[in-house]
């Protein structure tokens, strides 16, 4: 019985997760010296540090992802607060469903929406001209801010849901008691709400950061040639240039960054990985 239940899990994890990643590591640590002849080497990693373009794109991707995560948290937190603590139960159920709806649609569709809204011939530039704010239509695509908007939009659900679930368990009496004892709104937020919501905040931030870092569609469509997203470099090396060794090295660097940030997030909030993922 145990063997029958264990087999699918082991096949899945070994064949699709563990072995492919070991293979990827081996691939990144070898170098082609002649057709079908390889030797162990750290050259791919050296290239990454020597070539400014590569590590700059890497740092840029990390910073923009962190920024997108922080902004998503800032925008989502009041919404989660309203859903759990302000709105009546009917309104809050409706609001939560409204928040979920856009994420039932493909990310491609959502990116298409932003393209239609923001490009030079699009809806918002035309509106700005009509309102007399700009004399001619301006190009709103292909900026870093555009990429950020797209990423925040795409990640919103993964922040709202864990925040709502962690704020739901916060006993209202605690807030009322603090208020009666004379605490200001800011003190209540810092001393009661945020500590209680920490698991939800961590879960949301980890998932959003990871999804943002690994996103390919939104940065390339909304950022165009200026996007300079690290996943694009991986795609170029793997699929366009067929330099798998270099692509594997890039992949490992991205994986290392994402793992480091997950570990950091868990450490800072004192959470356990298993609990956080269950919550997300």
């Amino acid at each position, binding site marked *: 019985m145990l063997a029958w239940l264990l087999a*699918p899990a082991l096949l899945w994890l070994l064949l699709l997760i563990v072995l492919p990643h070991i293979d990827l590591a081996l691939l990144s640590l070898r170098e082609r010296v002649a057709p079908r002849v390889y030797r162990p080497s750290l050259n791919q990693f050296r290239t990454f540090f020597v070539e400014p373009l590569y590590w700059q794109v890497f740092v840029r991707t990390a910073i923009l992802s962190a920024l997108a995560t922080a902004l998503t948290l800032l925008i989502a937190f009041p919404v989660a607060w309203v859903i759990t603590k302000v709105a009546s139960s009917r309104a809050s159920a409706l609001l939560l469903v409204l928040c979920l709806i856009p994420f039932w649609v493909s990310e491609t569709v959502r990116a298409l*929406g932003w393209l239609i809204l923001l490009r030079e011939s699009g809806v918002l530039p035309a509106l700005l001209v009509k309102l007399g704010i700009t004399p001619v239509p301006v190009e709103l695509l292909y900026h870093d801010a555009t990429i950020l908007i797209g990423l925040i*939009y795409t990640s919103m659900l993964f922040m709202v849901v864990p925040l709502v679930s962690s704020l739901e368990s916060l006993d209202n009496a605690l807030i009322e008691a603090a208020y009666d004892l004379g605490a200001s709104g800011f003190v209540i937020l810092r001393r009661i709400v945020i500590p209680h919501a920490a698991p939800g905040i961590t879960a949301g931030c980890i998932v959003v950061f990871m999804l943002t870092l*690994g996103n390919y569609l939104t940065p390339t469509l909304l950022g165009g040639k200026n996007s300079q997203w690290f996943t694009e470099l991986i795609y170029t090396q793997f699929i366009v240039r067929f330099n798998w060794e270099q692509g594997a090295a890039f992949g490992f660097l991205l994986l290392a960054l994402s793992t480091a940030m997950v570990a950091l997030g868990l450490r800072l909030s004192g959470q356990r990985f298993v609990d956080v993922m269950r919550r997300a």
Partner: protein
Amino acid sequence: MISSLPRPVWLRTATMLYIAAFLIFLFLPLLVVAVFAFNDASYPAPPWRGFTLDWFLGNAAAGRVGLFRDSELLGSIWTSVVVATWVTALSVTVGTANAFLMERCRFPGKQALSILMLIPLVIPGVILGISILAFSSRIAELADSLFGLDLDFLRPGLPLVVAGQFSYIATIATLMISARLKRFDRTLEEAALNLGASHAAVLRTITFPYLRPALIGSAAISFLMSFENFNTTLMLVGPDAPLTVTMYGRMREGATPVLNAVSLFLMLASAALALALMRGSKRAS
């Protein structure tokens, strides 16, 4: 709702405005996609030139190929459906086995396995894609050089796309089904066994009916996630592209409103799926 706290008028107004702005932010992109599917122009852009159904029904003779005549788009919708069906079947089956394994069995290394099962969710999709691509082509090369076998399914194509999507969707199905199995009252099973039911009969008449909502829910989520997946799929795709990859290619070339038409179709399909799920879960609870 906390009713005892004072809520001055300015705070209530600010809250309303914030929520309104947030909802506009959420729905504006979807709204413009839907609206411009009916605009009588060659590009999905303002100004409004009148209502048309060309982007659904038009044929090549009229100069506009509508969704229902666009064989490439229709073909890729079908490809996505086939892929999603496989991914759903695999994920729900493996997810159910995993749920029983983690909730009902004891074995050494269980703790490590439960962590390993969560790992696919924190690996970026692009990396899942390239690692499976690299590993499968290594196996294919080995099979070729050792046995002279040509294992076509290990080359980029739909079998690899299914494997790549399944690799992380299985985790989601596992979590959903485990969560329900954990709440199951085992005395029900014991009572049935005491009354002489066989293990198979207990599973069929008690445990699985109880799990049904989680099975249906995880199937719907798996189907949807597979249908929407882009990052992993892009790395593993062969000549037959699923819908998201085809749409991405068209969007880079400069989209015509036929993409709005297919997007609207997707929105309606998702809405139907969501409604069906909600009704189903209401009946179950």
